[in-house]
């Protein structure tokens, strides 16, 4: 299996892509997954994280097959 990372809105513009597909490596949390995918870009402070479409803390471990999304504060409505 693998991990899908998705980026939305201003964060998508900042990283220059909307998704990454990564090999699963055990023991990584969401914060560490970001650094693997974006080694030269620090994760901005206010970014939200969802795993499989649920909001989670950055310290949440990523499992094989997960979809991990990073995005800025929401501005709908």
């Amino acid at each position, binding site marked *: 299996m693998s991990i899908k990372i998705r980026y*939305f*809105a*201003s964060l998508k513009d900042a990283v220059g892509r909307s998704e990454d597909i990564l090999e699963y490596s055990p023991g990584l949390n969401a914060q560490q997954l970001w650094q693997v995918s974006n080694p030269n870009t620090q994760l901005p402070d206010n970014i939200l994280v*969802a795993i499989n*479409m649920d909001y989670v803390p950055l310290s949440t471990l990523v499992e094989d097959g997960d979809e991990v999304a990073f995005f*800025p504060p*929401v*501005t*709908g*409505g």
Partner: protein
Amino acid sequence: MGIKICNGAFDPWAELRLHEQELQEYAGKVGATNIFIGTMRDFNAGDDVQGMTLEYYPGMTEKHLGLIMQGAHAQWQLLDTLIVHRVGDILPKDPIVLVAVWSSHRGDAFDACRYIMENLKAKAPFWKKELLRNQQTRWVSSNSNGYA
């Protein structure tokens, strides 16, 4: 209960009329309906805004709108709820969001409609990019708290 994401303009009055046709079974129990409509303004943060693009996260957006709706039904005595939200390219004066709540008593309808709107603004994955007069674009950075 209904959740609808529209990629294209929607008419709130037509949506409401349509939805009410489906709730004939308990229409005699409805004493109160509260409706909120958010429309696109032609100004924001001191600048003229000519248009807007609304991005969302298909799947997660609908899921969280559903959770917010369930949260409202758990806290108040409601007969029905509807959320319609626009995505894609929109123009000033266009409706962006419609929230409607049907209940027997008015306190429930007012409280639940506002709860849904505030939670939608805080938690539902939508993002607005504004097109300014000079053809520059900017992402809206965050929503304000509407209870304040």
